[in-house]
């Protein structure tokens, strides 16, 4: 972000509007996630319904940001940091829209879960949710203040989410083996933890975009990852056959 304004002042107004829209959309996506998690904890189906409905607002915001960015590309011919901001806004808006989609999906599964008795592993999910919600919060702060360090911090933090997801995945598999009646609820919970884990991934993507936007370069180092669920096998305690 340059300290001096453009000679054409309305260009500055456009850029500011773009920044504000991203922050507003991010805030809404964050609220959607919070509401979905709260609906889970409080078994509140009507809050879950509200969350699902509110997804349309986020979708609309993405369209508005796209329109503004396209207009600026056509009319202002932005270059350098201005160009990087416009392109970043386009990409970030698309990722935030996905975040809100995941939140809406969480809310749908809350409604399904509420039709079955409470199961224990539910408690780990809010912890994951809180961690990821905090990432959204920080990434928006990094965007507003052009804070590369904070963006890098969020970028690295995703590993914790991966670890939590990994342990939750194992816990849920074990649970299902112990009690096949829990399979429906546990499957929903696996998808829900996967959704939250994906939101975390999207935050690292946004962090990379912000780092590029500020510095003009994508991060060089390799991002630490902790999700091993794709290669996880749990031995079936009933079959006695080991596959490991």
């Amino acid at each position, binding site marked *: 972000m340059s300290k001096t304004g453009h000679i054409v002042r309305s260009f500055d107004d456009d850029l500011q509007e773009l920044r504000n829209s991203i922050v507003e959309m991010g805030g809404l996506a964050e609220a959607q996630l919070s509401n979905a998690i709260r609906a889970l904890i409080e078994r509140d189906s009507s809050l879950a319904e509200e969350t699902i409905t509110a997804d349309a607002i986020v979708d609309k915001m993405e369209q508005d940001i796209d329109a503004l960015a396209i207009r600026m590309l056509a009319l202002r*011919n932005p*270059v350098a*940091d201005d160009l990087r901001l416009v392109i970043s806004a386009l990409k970030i808006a698309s990722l935030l829209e996905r975040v809100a989609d995941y939140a809406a999906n969480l809310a749908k599964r809350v409604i399904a879960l509420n039709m079955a008795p409470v199961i224990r592993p539910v408690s780990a999910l809010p912890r994951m949710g809180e961690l990821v919600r905090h990432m959204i919060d920080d990434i928006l702060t990094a965007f507003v203040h052009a804070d590369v360090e904070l963006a890098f911090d969020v970028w690295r933090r995703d590993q914790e989410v991966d670890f939590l997801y990994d342990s939750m995945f194992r816990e849920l598999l074990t649970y299902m083996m112990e009690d096949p009646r829990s399979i429906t609820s546990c499957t929903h919970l696996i998808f829900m933890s996967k959704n939250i884990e994906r939101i975390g991934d999207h935050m690292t993507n946004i962090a990379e975009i912000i780092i590029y936007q500020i510095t003009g*370069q994508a991060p060089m180092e390799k991002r630490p990852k902790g999700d091993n669920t794709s290669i996880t096998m749990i031995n079936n305690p009933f079959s006695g056959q080991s596959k490991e």
Partner: protein
Amino acid sequence: MQMIAEIVNQEIQVNKAIISAKEVSVFYREKQALNSVSLDIPENQITALIGPSGCGKSTFLRCLNRMNDTVEGCRVEGLITVEGQDIYAPSVDEVLLRARVGMVFQKPNPFPKSIYENVAYGPRIHGLARNKDELDDIVLTSLEKAGLLNEVRDRLNSTGTSLSGGQQQRLCIARALAVQPDIILMDEPCSALDPIATAKVEELIEELRENYTIIIVTHSMQQAARISQKTAFFHLGEIVEVGDTDQLFTSPKDSRTQGYITGRFG
């Protein structure tokens, strides 16, 4: 692996500097217009010089074929070589230099003569043709290279000034090409042209790159971004930043470059 080696070699080939300026300073009497500018111009590429009015970019351009010699009170310091040869050495004939390093100006300036004569003039005084057939050949080839032949084939004897602005500018480019230069300097060649004529000249410049090295001064940053491979940003008589055009317009390193190209105050 061999392919990679070839690509690397090609890049080295493409990037070989044909013009090299080292610590060039220019004074117009007491006033210093350029302050210790160093720049390498790669062969067969288009190098754009950008910067606000009075930043020294045109002055620099005019040093490259000693056009500043004609300005009274102008003094050039430093070293400028074209293919290794110091062009300010006493032994250098500046007329021959200007044939090798041609120039196209902001306003199309055809001679008040026929289209044919405009192009034939240079080769004739430089003795490039032994007879009329050879001269005809040079004129037609130059007009063709300048993308003008099809438009003027039937009226080579009409005056150059009867052409449209864009055609006149391409005629001036044909005139520069006729004396078989290696390098063409262009000082805002499109600033007096409409967008269509500009596009045609830009397309021509792009084609010429294959056989010529082109250095262009332009006030249009979009134009610099569109056609050049390398861009140098001048400010207050110095080069602030020089780099690959795509890098300079996406991620400039210097805040002054950023301020200028994005349309903010310095």
